Structure formats: structure tokens, C-alpha cells
């Protein structure tokens, strides 16, 4: 359709921390992923784009250990990974913030941050270990202030927080355990202007801390505000990979809708 396509090149010279090669995932007859390549580097925000049903969620679920891929490989720091459960991925240093946040509304912020990884202390040696509330509360407060997340009290029930605060808590929960890769599935989808700002700032802070951040989004403004690179998926394949500084929003939209064809930059 349009002859003149921008030239796309890899943003970093160094090897990306996370590399996905030829990933295949089928749900019965549905080919959700047809040999997808994807990469994310440390200190960079990689946007994962694509229309509904393109396969974005399926891809990150494979990376997060929720789905076991049918083919291809996932490399972390060059080493092949075989995740069978989300816990495997977490252990390897990949944390995911799902769209539905996975917070317990009935628990307070501290309890949510330490959900499933509660800290204990010995009350009666060898018999009773109680929760170490003080240590968890202290670490929770420190982690939130490092990320500059403002909430009235870490002892507030999550149900009492605003949407942006809840999203921030979900992100803090992911980074509390010093992962190498953080995946955010549509982090600003349900938020207003001020709260979107809050979450985007948080994403930038994760980048400053040297994490490889992957953000799924449908919002082009978000992409150009925080992303360094973008990968575009369509019908289960990656159709383009950009350095954000070298493209315009129109180029990206064209790649998503398929109104223009791009040469996928897959090789190093």
C-alpha cells in the first residue's frame, strides 16, 4: 500500500535478557501463536501491541508459565526455560501483573504484597511459627516509598483503595521480590487520566531500576510515553518490531491493523 517504510533497527547492541524464539501454542484447532519471536531487554520498556485476539495474552501467559507452549523456546539470559507453572516463572525472576490484578480485597496492603510468601517468626521453636507482621509491614512501607507509591496506610484494606492505587499495589507486589522481568497486562485500561499518569510513572521507575518491562496495551499514547520498543502481533505472529523513537503513531497503527506491511526485524 505504501512503498516507503521506515527503517527499523534493534535498539540495543547487547543481547536481550528475555528471548522468545518460534513460540507455538494451539488451543485445539485455534493456532493462537504461530512461531512468535519476541525479546525484552533490561532497562527498557517493551510494548506488546496487536488487535483483539492477536495472541498477546497467550504469549505472555507462556512466558509467565500459565500456558505451556507447544513449540519454540523461551530463553532467559541465554538459558532455555521450561516453565510448567506460574511459580516456575516467578522463581526464574519473571513476575506478571494480570489485568484483573489478582488482589484480595478483604486483606490489607501488607497481606497482599506478601500473599503466598508470608514471613514468619518462631513463637514456640519447632511447633508454632506466627506471621511476622512488623517485618512485613516495614518492608512493605519501604518498598512502596522506593516506588513512590502513595497510599494512606499499608494497613488499609485493598478494597478501600482507588483503581490507580490498586494497580500500583499489584505492581509493587510483583517487584517486591526483585524480578528481572515484569509483565504488565493492560495496566492503564480501567484508569482515569491522573491515575494513568501515576501508573505510567511507575512503569518508568521500573525501567530506571534496570528491569526488563513488558507492557501490553491498546493505548497509543501510553506506548509513546513510556515504551522504548514495540512488538506488534497479528493473527498469532509478530508482524513488526520497532524502536519507538524511529516511528510515528501512524506507523504503529498501520502495523496493528495490517494496512501496511512491514519487514519484521527478527534477526540480530
Amino acid at each position, binding site marked *: 500500500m505504501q512503498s516507503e517504510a521506515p527503517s527499523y533497527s534493534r535498539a540495543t547492541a547487547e543481547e536481550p535478557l528475555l528471548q522468545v524464539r518460534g513460540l507455538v501454542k494451539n488451543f485445539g484447532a485455534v493456532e493462537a501463536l504461530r512461531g512468535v519471536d519476541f525479546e525484552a531487554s533490561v532497562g527498557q520498556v517493551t510494548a506488546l501491541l496487536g488487535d483483539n485476539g492477536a495472541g498477546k495474552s497467550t504469549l505472555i501467559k507462556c512466558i509467565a508459565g500459565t500456558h505451556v507452549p507447544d513449540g519454540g523456546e523461551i530463553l532467559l539470559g541465554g538459558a532455555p526455560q521450561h516453565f510448567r507453572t506460574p511459580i516456575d516463572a516467578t522463581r526464574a525472576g519473571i513476575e506478571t501483573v494480570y489485568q484483573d490484578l489478582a488482589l484480595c480485597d478483604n486483606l490489607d496492603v501488607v497481606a497482599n504484597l506478601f500473599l503466598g510468601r508470608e514471613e514468619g517468626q518462631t513463637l514456640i521453636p519447632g511447633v508454632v511459627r506466627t506471621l511476622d507482621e512488623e517485618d512485613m509491614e516495614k518492608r512493605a512501607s519501604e518498598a512502596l516509598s522506593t516506588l513512590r507509591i502513595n497510599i494512606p496506610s499499608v494497613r488499609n484494606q485493598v478494597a478501600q483503595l482507588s483503581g490507580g492505587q490498586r494497580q500500583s499495589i499489584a505492581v509493587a507486589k510483583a517487584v517486591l521480590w*526483585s524480578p528481572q522481568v515484569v509483565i504488565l497486562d493492560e495496566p492503564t485500561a480501567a484508569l482515569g487520566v491522573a491515575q494513568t499518569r501515576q501508573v505510567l510513572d511507575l512503569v518508568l521507575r521500573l525501567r530506571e531500576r534496570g528491569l526488563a518491562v513488558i507492557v501490553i496495551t491498546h493505548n497509543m499514547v501510553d506506548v509513546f510515553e513510556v515504551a522504548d520498543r514495540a512488538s506488534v502481533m497479528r493473527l498469532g505472529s509478530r508482524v513488526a518490531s520497532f524502536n519507538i523513537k524511529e516511528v510515528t503513531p501512524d506507523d504503529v497503527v498501520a502495523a496493528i491493523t495490517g494496512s501496511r506491511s512491514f519487514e519484521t526485524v527478527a534477526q540480530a
Partner: protein
Amino acid sequence: MSEAKTPRPTVAAPAPASIAADGSPAAVRSTAFGGITLSWDKLLTTVPIYIGLIVIWLYFDSQTAGKFIGARNLSEMAQEFSYEAVLAIGVVFVLLLGEIDLSLGYLTLLSVALTASFSALSQYSAGVSILLAIVICTLCGLLQGMLIAWVRMPSFVVTLGGFLIFEGIAYHILAGSTINVFDPFISSIGTYYLSNTVSWIVAVIVVAAYVLAKVANYRARAKAGLPHAPVARTVAAAIAIGVVLAIIVATLNSYRGVPVALAILAAFTIVFWFFASKLQIGRRIYAVGGNLEAARRAGINTTAVRWLVFGISGMMAGVAGVMLVGYSAAGSTTTAGPDLLLDVISIAVIGGVSLTGGKGTVWAVLLGGLVIASLDSGLNLMATDPYYVYVIKGAILLAAIGIDVIGKRSSGFSWLRRRTARA
């Protein structure tokens, strides 16, 4: 329980604190019990229940010429209804998961039948009879829990099946007759009293334990550099606990003393409150009840948690059955039954446990138990037609659930208010 613990915390861990206890920054308008916050909204929903309790007490007292609020009647109430509150402890855990256990009435009857027949027919010692009955009921609970947690059958259906099965077995054991139990130890559970001195000593120990736990909590929070609740508030709470205990003990001592059954209830309540709010497993029960999917993704073995809770439920039915045999010195098909189920669910819900899961504490059984016991006892003293008693109790259950639902809605509004105020 599967562990997802990764030893790479972001921030350096401070010196370990000595004891876990509740506490919240002074700035916050709520009282935190570990991770389970008793919010202002929740407090407001329990106030009508305290008012209601005072109203029904005054009403019954006026209708019975002062017999209701008398040491003798209160003592009999404690004697007669403690087992219901003990059974309700299991219900609290089941409701925390957002599940239901319909089998409890007949599982309690099964415990009654087993205890009575082991003790009176098989001539086992009291200890063996009691232990066997409780273990068998716990296994029954675990069996139902297995179908619910692993096979993923709805708890409503599984426990409805259990309802019939336990009814059948209990009726078979009792064979339509009454088994009289003469074992003095078993009878002592339901009919004896603590000596006056022992009661006072226990009351003092409870207050001292509270104060010590608070001191340890203040120390731990200071050590971790965390703000703590105002000292005045804690002192006031300690005094309030002391005064309430003193009134209860003095009143009961002026009749025959503190019933053993009430002491058993108090002990189970404290133990299970500790279990629910101070231990990792308790926190995980709340997490599973609050958001099953979130708990699963956090690496919590949700299946095991659900299984365990139905085991607790079965165990408490076992204990309640033993207490019932102790009280009536016999087991028969009328000793317990499905009516009991309605009472214990009312107890939990009146005490502030939500049917939708994740909300409420074990303390609920004391408040709810007091309300239900008062109603039963008062209506009985007034010689009310038992059929009306059913109607009244049914209405009370519906009212309690109504308050729960409306309370949730109003806290939803306040969330909206806060949100708009912040924006």
C-alpha cells in the same frame, strides 16, 4: 502447602520482631488485626446487633419478671448453648471460604451417637470414646472436603449428600432408642462448673496474657521503626476486657460458677482466633475466601486450604456432639439435627461473618452465640409456642443476612466517596 518463597527481597530485612500482634498506625481510622482489618464500616454494622441484644435482654427480663437477667438463667444459657457456638467456629471457617456445610446438624448427631455408643455400649473409656468420635467426624469432614476441593463438586451438593448419609448412620447407631451415658468425665463436660478460685485465676491470666502480648507488640513495632496505636487506647482495651471478664465471672460465681462448657468454648475461640489471624495458614484461608484466583496465582495450595477447612468443620461437629452428650448424659435421635444448622449459621452471620467469603473473625461465635442463646432461652422462659420460635429464628437469620448485604453496599458507597474525594 506449596511454597513460592524466593530469597531475594528488595529491601534489607530488619531485625526480626519477637511476637506477631495486631496494631495499626495511629493515623488510620481502623483497627488492624494482622492482615484482616476491622474497618469502621464493619464496626457500624455490628453496633445494631449490640443494641438489638440489649433490647431483647430488657424485653425478656421485663416479660419474665426479672428471671432472664439472673445468674441462674445466664448460667443455664451458657451451659446449654456453648456447644452451638463451638460448632459455629467450624461454620465461620467454611463461610470464610464462601462455601456452605449443610451436613453439620447430622454430623453433630453422628458424633452424639458415636460418643454415646462407644462410652455406654462398647464400654470404652471417656478419653477413647471422645477421641474416636472427634476423629471420625474430622474424617467425615475431610472426606466431604476431598470431594469439594479435589473433585470440585459444589459444597452445597456434597454436604447435602453428607446430610443424608450422616443422618442414616447416626439413626442406625442409635436404633431409635436413647443411649444413656453414665461416664462421670463425659457428664462433667456438660454439667460441671469451674471452682470460683480457678475462674478468677483464669480471668487474671487472660488479662495478663493480653497485656503481655500488647507490650511485646509495642516493642516489636518500636524495633521495626513502625508507628503504634496510642497507649491510652490499649490500656482502655485491657481495662475493658478485665471489667467484662470480672462481671461474667462474678455473676456466674454467684450461682454455681463458670460452666465447664463455657470454658471449653472460650478456649476453642481463642485457639482458633490465633490460628486464623496469627498463622500463615489462617492468612491463606482469608486469601482463598477473598479471591481464589489471586491466591492460586500467588502459589497458595488452594485445594489443600479448602480441604483443611472442611476438616475443621467436621472436627468442630465432633466436639459439639461430645459436649451435647455431656450435657444431656444421653444420646438419642432428637439430641441434634438439622435445626442446629440454622442456629449455627445465624450465629456466624449475626457475629459479622459474610456469606460471600473472606470477611469475619472467629470472635463472631461469642456475639452471635449470645444472641441466639438469649432468644432461645427467653422464648422458652416465656413459654412461647415452639412453632413460633422457628418463625422468629428464621426471620432473625434473614435479618442478619440483610444487614450483611446492606452493610457491604454502604461500604461500597463509602469507597466511592473516598475515591471521588481524592480525585
